[in-house]
């Protein structure tokens, strides 16, 4: 970007960009392209691909059954994201206002659970929410309920599991954004007569919006494609597109149909990212930074 140099070696861009781009091409672009191409073919009798073009997979996915699953998945992911935001924003705010020593400790404490294995953490919720689990036992012992609540194998359990998995991913970008806020802006707003709510809505929130959007994307995207949590905590009752995709590839061996489902998820993703970019540009005025 600096054209002050007189001699720019021609090999430099190749050496820098070549290996990385080549790798991504082979291991990401080509695989995704393959998936895209499978959408128009058919499943063979034993699984596998029969290379005869058909639109059948697309008409099949338009069936209300599958649309429902997709919509339901988006709903669950969205609810998880909202919950993460409601819990995460205040938490990030408080952390940002802590004295430095506590700040570091608080951040580590947020990230630490993230470092224990995701599967085990999800399994812990089975123990908690089971009909003989900790929560039900506690509620029963306290005399608040007389028969166990059906906590597990519900959408609520899945949302809890997803929230648990991805909450740190919401808190960290939010913290980053809030931390960068100039405290003088808040003071100025107060000096001009705005109450705390007004200051928050008109000053703090818009300025931290990029962080909010990043956090939302970081929670929504993995939640949408997750299949482990719906399987373990949803018990197959909570139909999510992630488990459906996994089943098409590993059980039903219907790769073309599975590929169409993957395409749907990617489509939702693209829409989301475009919305994020638009909102980010509109509200922060600075242009978006990833």
């Amino acid at each position: 970007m600096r054209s002050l140099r007189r001699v720019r070696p021609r090999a430099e861009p190749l050496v820098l960009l070549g290996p990385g781009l080549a790798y991504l091409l082979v291991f990401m672009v080509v695989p995704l392209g393959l998936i895209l191409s499978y959408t128009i073919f058919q499943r063979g009798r034993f699984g596998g691909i029969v290379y005869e073009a058909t639109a059948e997979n697309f008409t099949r996915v338009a069936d209300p059954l599958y649309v429902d699953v997709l919509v339901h998945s988006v709903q669950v992911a969205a609810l998880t994201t909202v919950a993460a935001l409601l819990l995460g924003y205040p938490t990030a705010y408080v952390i940002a206002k802590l004295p430095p020593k506590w700040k570091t400790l608080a951040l580590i404490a947020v990230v630490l659970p993230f470092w224990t294995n995701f599967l085990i953490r999800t399994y812990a919720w089975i123990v908690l929410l089971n009909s003989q689990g900790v929560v039900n036992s506690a509620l029963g012992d306290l005399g608040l309920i007389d028969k166990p609540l059906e906590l597990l194998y519900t959408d609520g359990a899945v949302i809890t599991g997803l929230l648990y998995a991805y909450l740190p991913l919401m808190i960290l970008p939010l913290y980053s954004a809030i931390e960068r806020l100039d405290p003088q802006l808040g003071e100025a707003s107060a000096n001009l007569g705005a109450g705390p709510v007004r200051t928050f809505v008109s000053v703090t929130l818009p300025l931290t919006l990029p962080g909010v959007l990043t956090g939302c994307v970081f929670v929504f995207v993995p939640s949408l494609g997750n299949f482990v949590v719906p399987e373990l905590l949803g018990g197959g009752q909570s139909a999510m597109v992630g488990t459906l995709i996994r089943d098409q590839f590993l059980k039903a061996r219907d790769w073309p149909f599975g590929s169409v489902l993957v395409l749907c998820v990617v489509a939702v993703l693209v829409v989301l990212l475009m919305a994020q970019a638009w909102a980010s540009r509109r509200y922060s005025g600075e242009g978006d930074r990833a």
Partner: protein
Amino acid sequence: MRSRLAFAPFWLTYLFLYAPIAVLVVMSFNAADTPYTWGGFTTSWYGELARDEKIREGLVNTLIVAAGSTVLATVLGTLLAVGIARHTRSKALGALATLPAILPDLVLAIGLLAFYSAVKATLGLHSILAAHTVFGMAFVATVVRTRLSHADTSLEEASRDLGAGAFTTFVRVTLPGLMPGIVAGALLAFTLSIDEFVIAFFTAGPKDPTLPIVIYSMVRFGVTPEINALATVLLVVSFTAVVAVQRVTRLTDALR
């Protein structure tokens, strides 16, 4: 002023994050077979854990994959980041480099499964390693690019003006300046690889499972108290590692 109201969610978050972990830790010392009754204090599950060959095998495989993919990802990602920052204005290339980090892991996993199947590759640790490098690289590139955007290029210009070649400048001037970003990115890639389940699940061969895959089989078949012991051990190890890393690199500063 605001803070008063915000404190409730703050404590709720930490309670939420640590309640299940507390359960796991407590259960790891529970002598009873099921988590729903207390059978007395014992450390026998830790003993069983130490003797469990599958877990040991999984751990070794996980470390191999994580180390290998991190090295590869760091090299490729750093080069890519510098290349994108210096030699192109294309937003497309920037997006491409970041894409693996944003794509749902399931999508990447399925794509790679299809790819390996199409080229009739034999699956094994190498296929997982290659897969992990893809997203590792994206994270390294993102972190290094952020670092680059704050970097001062005048040192490099000075180096070139004084006659140093491109390669020398890169190694002696650019890289050291980027080092905190590179280390942070590498750590991130390593961490993500260690716990990564979905991509490993789809790209693993029949023989060498990584630790998350081993755990998945254990969890799927029902309750095994050993798992609680494993969780506790992982927690302690992670805590030590994070604290150590923080001391050495002031990791949390990378969040600014």
